[in-house]
Every structure is written in C-alpha cells, then in structure tokens.
C-alpha cells in the first residue's frame, strides 16, 4: 500500500508534465501565432509585434540557439516551450484579452460561484441517486425496477442544453417560480441557484442511478448479504450496515473523481443563468477567442483532477481494510 502510494506520487508529476506538453502542442504548435488576430484588423506592424512579445510568440518554439550564442548557454531555454512550463508552475497565465485582468485572479474569482452551484448540485444528485438505487436493489426484477431503468435511459438521452433552456423558459420565465437570471454573492443570492441546481440534479440523475443501481445489484447478490440475512438481520440494517459500506468503494471513487469537475463549474448552466463562475469564464473565453484562459483552465483543472485521483487511493484505504495489507 505504502509503496503503491509512493509510486503513484512519483507518477503524478509525469502526468502533469504530459498535460503541459498537450496544452503546449495545442496552443503553441497547432494553433500557432495569434498575435495578428489579437491585435485586430488593420493593426499596425508595431501593435502586432507588441502582442507577439506579450504573448511570447516572439521566441522560438523549443530551443533558443540565437539567444544562447548572445547571452550564454542557459539562454537556450528562453523558448516558448520552457516559458510554458515556467508560467504554469508559477501560475502566471498572462492577462485576459478583453478585461486585461490577470488570468490567475479570474480563475480564483470564478471558483466560488462555481462551487456554490456545483457542490449542492453534486450532493443532491449523489444522495438522491444512492437512495433510489438502494431502494431499487430491494425490488430488483420488478416492474418498478424496469420502469426506473427506462426512465434513466430516457433521461440520459435528453440533450442537457435543451433541458436547461426548457427549464429556464418554463419554470422561471413562464411560471415565474424562480428568478430567470442573476447572481449575488452570499446568502442573498441563494434564490438564483435553486433552479440551476435542480436542473443539474435532474440531468445527472439518469446516469447516476444507472451506475449506482449496478453497484448495488452487484453487492446485494453477494454471499455476505445472505449470511447477514441468515443471522436474522432486518432489511434496513442489511442495506445500511452491510451493503452500503461495501458499496462505498465504487461510490467514493466516483465522488473523488467528480470533485475537480466541481471546480470546472457547469459550463452551460452558468452561461444560461448568469452565474459568473469558471464555466461562464470558459464559455466567454471561447467567444472572445482568448486562448490564455482556456490554457490556464485546462492546466489547473487537470492538476486538481490528478490530485483527486491520488486522493481516491487514500480514501480506498480508509474504507476497505483489504487495501492496507496489499
């Protein structure tokens, strides 16, 4: 177990380096120099050159042999590739194209609204889905079970985009049960979150119930459940004490892996309900063609994701005593 964690720890930087190579390839090599686009139409050569310098496209991609011959051997690293790494490690992702704010502070600001939306959304989906699937495990094979599965598949087949648009139109605009759009920090803003959270829970339920149902069915047919029954244990306690604790392993791994997505926010929901989170930032950046924000988001969220993966293994050990021995 310990050596496994150590190996995982050593692998983590390798994956982070991989992510940086991918983003470098995408935004520096494939996309190439966008200074002219940044400077806008009819910009002077000087303006373009200014942008080129600011965005770092004035340097060679990998090896700066020119600078090396002028300023010494170490200047060979004065290239886009190495600056890409350095900037990522120092969390310096430049300034936003339109607002000119620092990208890193935009990310930090967006995290709170995003989490305010995604944490209740996530917990709501998790608790509802686990409860439903526990219940379904009891009535497996019945008509109710089949109808729930069919409902799940139908739910998974609906495009999320259409769901949000319909929900916003019908419940907020038409019925006026909720505010259509808006954001306020603190508890006063809670009213703006109710509908988006409910929509998110509804949209996520189909896939989650199906997943947890499979988990629960795997466990409820296990021999130890029969043993517990043969002991004379009652059904609620068999579910709660025996089944759920064993089912915690797949549940926890799903939960931990979902945590980085919470930071990413909900791209479409935030956009539609005017919540200034990271999802909104991302959609805005795509519209404004601001590659630095997209680059920064990709890197930061991926690092969180990698760390989340690492945390999963630690959580396994806490729940499953078998892991400690191996």
């Amino acid at each position, binding site marked *: 177990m310990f050596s496994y964690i150590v190996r995982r720890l050593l692998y983590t930087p390798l994956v982070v380096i991989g992510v940086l190579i991918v983003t470098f390839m*995408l935004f520096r090599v494939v996309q190439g120099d966008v200074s002219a686009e940044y400077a806008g139409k009819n910009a002077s050569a000087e303006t373009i050159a200014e942008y080129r310098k600011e965005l770092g496209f004035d340097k060679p991609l990998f090896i700066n042999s020119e600078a090396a011959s002028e300023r010494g051997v170490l200047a060979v690293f004065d290239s886009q590739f190495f600056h890409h790494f350095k900037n990522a490690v120092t969390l310096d992702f430049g300034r936003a194209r339109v607002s000119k704010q620092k990208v890193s502070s935009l990310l930090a600001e967006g995290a709170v609204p995003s989490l305010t939306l995604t944490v209740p959304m996530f917990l709501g989906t998790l608790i509802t889905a686990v409860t439903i699937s526990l219940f379904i495990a009891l009535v497996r094979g019945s008509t109710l079970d089949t109808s729930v599965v069919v409902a799940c*598949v139908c739910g*998974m*087949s609906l495009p999320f985009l259409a769901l949000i648009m319909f929900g916003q139109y019908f419940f907020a605009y038409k019925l006026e049960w909720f505010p259509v759009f808006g954001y306020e920090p603190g508890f006063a803003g809670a009213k703006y979150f109710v509908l988006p959270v409910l929509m998110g829970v509804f949209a996520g339920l189909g896939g989650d119930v199906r997943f947890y149902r499979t988990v629960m069915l795997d466990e409820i047919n296990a021999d130890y459940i029969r043993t517990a029954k043969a002991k004379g244990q009652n059904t609620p306690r068999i579910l709660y004490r025996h089944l759920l604790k064993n089912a915690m392993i797949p549940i926890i791994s799903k939960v931990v892996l979902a945590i980085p997505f919470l930071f990413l926010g909900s791209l479409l929901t935030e956009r539609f309900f005017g919540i200034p989170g990271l999802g909104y930032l991302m959609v805005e950046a795509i519209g404004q063609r601001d590659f630095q924000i997209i680059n920064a988001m990709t890197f930061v969220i991926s690092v969180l994701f990698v760390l989340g993966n690492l945390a999963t293994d630690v959580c396994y050990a806490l729940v499953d005593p078998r892991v400690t021995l191996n």
Partner: protein
Amino acid sequence: MTAISAEPVVSTASAGRSLWYDAWLRFRRKKLAMVMLVIVVLYVIVGIGVASGWLAADWQDSVGESYAPPSWDTPFGTDIFGQSVFRKMIYGTKISLSVAFFASLLSIGIGVPLGAIAGYFRGYIDEIIVWLYSTLSSIPGLLLILAFAYALKGATLFGYKLDGITAVYLALGLTSWVGLCRLIRGEVIKHKNRDYVTAANAYGASKARIIFRHVIPNVTHLILIDFSLRFVAFIHAEVILSFLGLGAKGEPSWGVMIDDARLELSRGYWWQMAAATLAIFGISLALNIVGDALRDALDPKIRE
C-alpha cells in the same frame, strides 16, 4: 450413458454456431432493442440520403413566412427565414452522424493499434503509451474536447486549413481513443498468454499477424459495445460544440438549431428547439438501448 432419450434432447447449447450468430440470436430476442435498431438504421439511411443530396437538399428554400407555427405542410413550423424546421432537422442528421462516424473511425484508428501494441510488446513502448493516455485522461473530458476543438478550429495542419466541422471530428477523435486503447491493451495482455497465441507463435506467425489476425478478432465485440454507447456521447458533444460556436457553420445541425432556438424560446417559438431535441433524443435513446442489448448479447460473462 446407456440410456437413450425417447425424444431428441432440446438444448440451448450452441455447438457449431459462431459466437456472432449466437449473440445475434440473443439480441433478436429483445423486442425493444430490435425496434431501436430499426430506428438507428433509419437515422443512418436519412443521414446517407442527406449526404448524397436526395433528402432535404432544399432546406434553404423559404416555404412560408417567418416563424410559422407547425402545420400539415411544415410539421415543425418555420424559422426566422421562413425555412422549414423539419427539413433542417432532417439535414442535421448528416452533421450529427458524420461527426459520430468520423470521430469513431479516428478513435478506433488510434486506440486499437496503440492498445494492441502496448499490450503485446509491453516494456518501454507500453510505458510510453500508458503515460500518453494517462495524461489525456487526466484532463476532464469536456474541457479536453473544448481545448482541442478550440485550438484546431482554423488551424492549418499539413497545409490544410481546418473548418469548424473537421475540427470537431478531429477534436472528438483525438480525445476519445483513450478508453478504447486501455480496453484493448488489457484484453491483449489477457489473450497474449492464451494457448492459441502460443500456437500461432509456434508455427511462425509474425507479431503483426498474431495481433491483427488472432487477438483483435477476439476483442472486436468489446469495440462494438464501446462504440454503440460512445456514439451518443459524440452526438451530444457536437450539440455543445456547435452551441459554443466551435462546430458546424453555414449548414444546419441540431446544435446550431438549439443555439438559434435560444432567443426564439422567450418569444414563444418553441418548434425549432422541439424538433432538434426530438431528433437528438430519438437517436440517443435508440443507441443507448441497442448498446445495452449488444453488451448483454455479446459479452456473456457480464450477463446475469
């Protein structure tokens, strides 16, 4: 056994039948899945029809006034330009299915060989491929697709400037091979030590021959199952990419239709959204159910 049965023994054993035929028999038993399979085939026929120009080629024609509600002549009404929403919906089938098709093709083209090579040769080649897909899989799915689609859109690759929809094919294809590669790698490792591979080795078959003639056919069903379900993800991804302006331009797709409908909805013009949603829902539902049935039919070990 000395006793002889009075009647021929009715048995469900499958001696002499191929694995595929057997799976087909199991699949055919599921009425719902068969209906859904017909629906999938219908979508494919419509998609091919549009692509070859004998369906909805006249989608640009104005058939009436702006925002006419649904009627007999225009089943889903008209849009702002008076174009038939129904024809646009039909036309959108082409974009959606071509995205799913090309992305799958690319994904299989990358995932299967890489997985097979990693699993068969192991060693440092394996390490590199595993590192590559570990890296890609540590970037959350939608973000990865967005980053790829964003960077690829308008980029010039090998002297060819990518338009929106090609960028979508590439973005989805280049990001979705990971799961398949992992799957194939695992299966190849498992099959590598089976006797039939040892036997092929013994009569001097080349490594490539062993992988592609002996191992891959034994994992084809896994590829098929994987893709029946991944198709749905591709179709939904196209909708989101088109909505974000990273997808198709100048021709109708379901994502573009939903994007258009965003402003129409508040004015009560619901039909364009309804048409696109219905089209997406239909193919997704059909593929989801067919995928589940395929998995049950093809992978006996996970059947109950």
